[in-house]
C-alpha cells in the first residue's frame, strides 16, 4: 500500500514536472514570438511615425504604406493614434483617424469581437469607442445579443452614446445592470447638452446611482440651464439628493438667490449644513453672517470649521471673527474661530 503510494507520488511529481516543463517551453516560444512582434511594431513606429504626423497635421497626402499588414502594425498604429487622441484636441485629426480606422482597422476589431477571450473582446470594444469606428455599430448591436459580461455591456453603452444617442437613451433606461456612479459619470459627461438634459427631466424614474451621477455631471458641466434643475432637487424627498444638489450648486458657484438655501442652515443633516456653509462663500458676508454665526456654533466639528473658514475668506472676515470671540460664550466655537483666524493671519 505504502509502496504504491510512494510510486504514485513519484508518478504525480514526474507528471507535474513534465507539465511544468511543457509550460516553460511554451513560455519561451511565446516570448520569442512576442519579441518578434515587438520588433515589427517598433520598426513600423520608427519608419512611419513621421509620415503619420505629416498626414495628420500637415495635410500631406495619404500614403498606402501606412496601411497595416498584420497585428503588430495595428498595434503600432493604435499607439500613434492614442498618443494624439489623448494629448491633442483637433477635429481635423480626429476625423482623419476615424476615417482611417473605419476603412483599414475595422476588420481586425470585427474579428476580435468574436474572440473567445474576454480580454480581447474588451480591448476591441475600447478601440471601437476610442477610434470612433461607427461602421461597427450594427456589429456591436449583434454582439449585444450574445451572453456578454457587465463590463462589455458598459462599453457597448459608451459606444452607443458616441454614435447614436437615441439608442443609448433607450438602452440605458432598459438596462438592468447597475453600474457604479463613476461609471455613469463617464457615460454622461460626453453627452451633448440636449441629450443630457433629458436625464434631468426624467430624473425621478432613474435608479439612485444614476441620479447621483446626473447631479454630479450637471455640476461639472457648469451650464446655467442646469442651475434651475438642481435648485428643484433641493426639495426632493431623499436627503442624499438634497446634499448632492447643494454640492453641485456650490461647485457651479453661481448663487443668484439666498432663499432656497436658508432652510438648510437648520437642517437635521450635518452634511447639508456643511454644504450651506460652503455655498455661502459665494455670497457677500453681509448677507450671510447671521447664518454663519449660527453655523459656527454648530454641534458638528466640520460645520464649525467650514463656517469659520467661510467667514475669514471675506475681507472683513477676521474682524468679524474677533468680534465673535469677544462676545461669545461658546467655548468650542471660540476655539475654532481663534484657530482659523490665527491660520489666516499666519499666512
Amino acid at each position, binding site marked *: 500500500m*505504502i*509502496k504504491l*503510494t*510512494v510510486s504514485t*507520488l*513519484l508518478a*504525480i*511529481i514526474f507528471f*507535474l*514536472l513534465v507539465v*511544468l516543463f511543457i*509550460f*516553460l517551453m511554451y*513560455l*519561451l516560444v*511565446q*516570448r520569442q514570438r512576442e519579441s518578434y512582434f515587438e520588433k515589427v511594431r517598433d520598426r513600423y513606429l520608427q519608419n512611419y511615425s513621421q509620415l503619420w504626423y505629416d498626414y495628420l497635421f500637415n495635410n500631406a497626402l495619404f500614403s498606402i504604406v501606412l496601411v497595416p499588414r498584420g497585428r503588430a502594425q495595428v498595434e503600432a498604429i493604435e499607439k500613434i493614434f492614442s498618443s494624439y487622441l*489623448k494629448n491633442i484636441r483637433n477635429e481635423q485629426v480626429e476625423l482623419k483617424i476615424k476615417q482611417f480606422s473605419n476603412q483599414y482597422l475595422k476588420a481586425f476589431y470585427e474579428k476580435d469581437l468574436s474572440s473567445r*477571450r*474576454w*480580454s*480581447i473582446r*474588451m*480591448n476591441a470594444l*475600447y478601440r471601437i469607442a*476610442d477610434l470612433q469606428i461607427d461602421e461597427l455599430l450594427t456589429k456591436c448591436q449583434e454582439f449585444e445579443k450574445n451572453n456578454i459580461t457587465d463590463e462589455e455591456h458598459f462599453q457597448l453603452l459608451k459606444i452607443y452614446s458616441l454614435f447614436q444617442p437615441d439608442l443609448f437613451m433607450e438602452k440605458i433606461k432598459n438596462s438592468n445592470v447597475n453600474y*457604479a*456612479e*463613476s*461609471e455613469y*459619470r*463617464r457615460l454622461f*459627461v460626453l453627452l451633448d447638452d440636449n441629450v443630457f438634459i433629458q436625464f434631468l427631466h426624467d430624473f425621478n424614474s432613474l435608479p439612485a*446611482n444614476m441620479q447621483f451621477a446626473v447631479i*454630479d455631471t450637471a455640476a*461639472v458641466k457648469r451650464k446655467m440651464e442646469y442651475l434651475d434643475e438642481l435648485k428643484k432637487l433641493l426639495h426632493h424627498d431623499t436627503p442624499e439628493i438634497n446634499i448632492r444638489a447643494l454640492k453641485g450648486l456650490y461647485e457651479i458657484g453661481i448663487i443668484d438667490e439666498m432663499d432656497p438655501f436658508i432652510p438648510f442652515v437648520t437642517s437635521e443633516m450635518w452634511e447639508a449644513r456643511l454644504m450651506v456653509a460652503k455655498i455661502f462663500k459665494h455670497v457677500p458676508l453681509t448677507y450671510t453672517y447671521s447664518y454663519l454665526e449660527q453655523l459656527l456654533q454648530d454641534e458638528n*466639528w466640520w460645520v464649525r*470649521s467650514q463656517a469659520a473658514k467661510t467667514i475669514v475668506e471675506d475681507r472683513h472676515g477676521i474682524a468679524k471673527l474677533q468680534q465673535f470671540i469677544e462676545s461669545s460664550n461658546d467655548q468650542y466655537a471660540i476655539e*475654532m474661530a481663534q*484657530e*482659523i483666524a*490665527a*491660520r489666516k493671519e*499666519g499666512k
Partner: protein
Amino acid sequence: MKIIDYCMMFFGGIILFYMLFVIVSYCTMFIIAMLDLRKRYRLDLSEYDDAHIDAFYSKPVSLLVPAYNEEVGVVDTVYSLLNLRYPQTEIIIINDGSTDQTLQTVIEHFQMKPINKIVRTNIPTKDIKQIYESEIYKNCILVDKENGGKADALNVGINVSQYPYFCSIDGDSILDEKSLLRVMKPIILSDGEVIAAGGNIRIANGAKMQFGSIYETQLPSNYLVIMQVIEYLRAFLMGRIALSKFNLVLIISGAFSVFSKKWAVEAGGYSTNIIGEDMELVVNIHRLIKEKKENKRIEFVPDPVCWTEAPQTLGVLRNQRRRWHQGLFESLWKHKKMTLNPRYGMIGFLSFPYFWLVECLGPLVELGGYIYIVIAFFLGKIYYEVALMLLLLFVIYGVIFSIAAILFESWSMNTYPKKRELLRMILLAFTEIFWYRPLTLFWRCEGLLRFVLRKSDWGNMKRVGIAEKEKSV
C-alpha cells in the same frame, strides 16, 4: 521500542495527512487565482487608468507615510508618491520621534515651514509637536510627534488627514505610478462597497530607480533575496487572490493598503499594543462589518505594485520572519473567539481555521516533518517509506508549487522578462526545500515560541535604502 513505534506511526500519519490537506488547499487557491488572472490576460489596463485619471471619477486619498529613523529612504518614498498618477492626494509624513536626521532631512529637502493646523482627534494618540507644510508641494505635510510606534504614527496620520480614504505606505517603499489608481479601482467601481484594498508587494532589491520611480526590474543577485521574490509570488498566487475573491482576506500588507477612513476610525484605528497592527485593523474591520451586518468587502488587488526592500542577510530575515509570525499568532489569539463562530460567517468558518491551521501552526507540523525524516533515517528501514513519502510531498509543496508560481507569474505579469532570470529562478526553486524552507520554518516556530513566552525585544531592520544600494551595485 514499542512506544517509539507508536509515536512514529502517530506523528507520521498526522504529518502526512496535514501535508495532503495543505497541498489540496493550495492547489484549490492556485486554480482560482489562475482562472481569475487568465480572464484578464492581455487586457489593456491603460484604458481604465486614462479614463479614471480625472478627479471627477475618483475619490481623493490621503497618503500616510510613518517614518521612524528612515532618513535614508524617506525622501525617495515621498518622491514616488509625488510621481503617482492620481488626481487628488495629500501626502502626510509622520515623524514618529526619530532619533536620527529624518525630521531635518524632510524639512530641508521639501522646504517645510511650520503651520497652524486644526487637528480633529478621531483616535486618541500621543501628542503632536508641530505640523509643517511644504513650500514646494502644497499637498505635502509633515507631522512631528512624540514617539509612540508605527500604529500610533498612522493614527496621527488618520487624524490629520482630510480625505475620505487613506493609504498607508511604509517609509522604505516605492509605489509604481499607477498603483494607487488601480488599488482604488475596486473601491470606485463598487461605490464604496469595498472599504479596504491591499496591493501586491514586490521586492525592489535589484531594481533600477531614479527620483522615486522604478524604470527597470532586474532579478537581484543575492540568493536569499531571490528566494524571497519566489516566496512573494507564491503567497500572492496561492492565497491572496483566492481569499480575496470570497472576501476572506485577513491580511493586506501594511506596506501598501487603502482604507475607508470612516470604517477604520470606527474600528478604533490601528492598535498600538500589538505587533501586526495591519492585520489587526483588517480583522477589526471584518468584525465590525459582521456586527453591523453590512454588505462590505475587503479586497486584494493583483496588479498594483509597491516595491519594498527585502532583507539581504540571514540575521535580518530571521528577525523579520520571527516578528511576522509572532504578530500573526498574536492577532489570531486575540480574536480566537471568531474561530468557527457562526456570527462571523465565512470569516469564522473558513478564514480563521485556514489561518490557524495553514499559516500559523503549519510551520510547527512542517518542521516536525523534517525532524521525522531525520529520525527515520536513524531508526532504520521500516520508516524509510513514510519518510520518503513525506519528502516527496515536500517536493510537491516546495519545488513544484514554487515553479508553477514562477511560470504563471511570468505568463500573466512578466515582471522579470529576461529568459536567464526565469531559468535562474526555476533552478533556485529546486534548492528551496533543502535550505530556505527549513530555515524560515525554524524562524517562524521561534516566533510562535516567543509569543508563548511573551517576548518582544526585536530590533529594527537595518535599511540601506533602495536607491542608495543601487548606486553601489
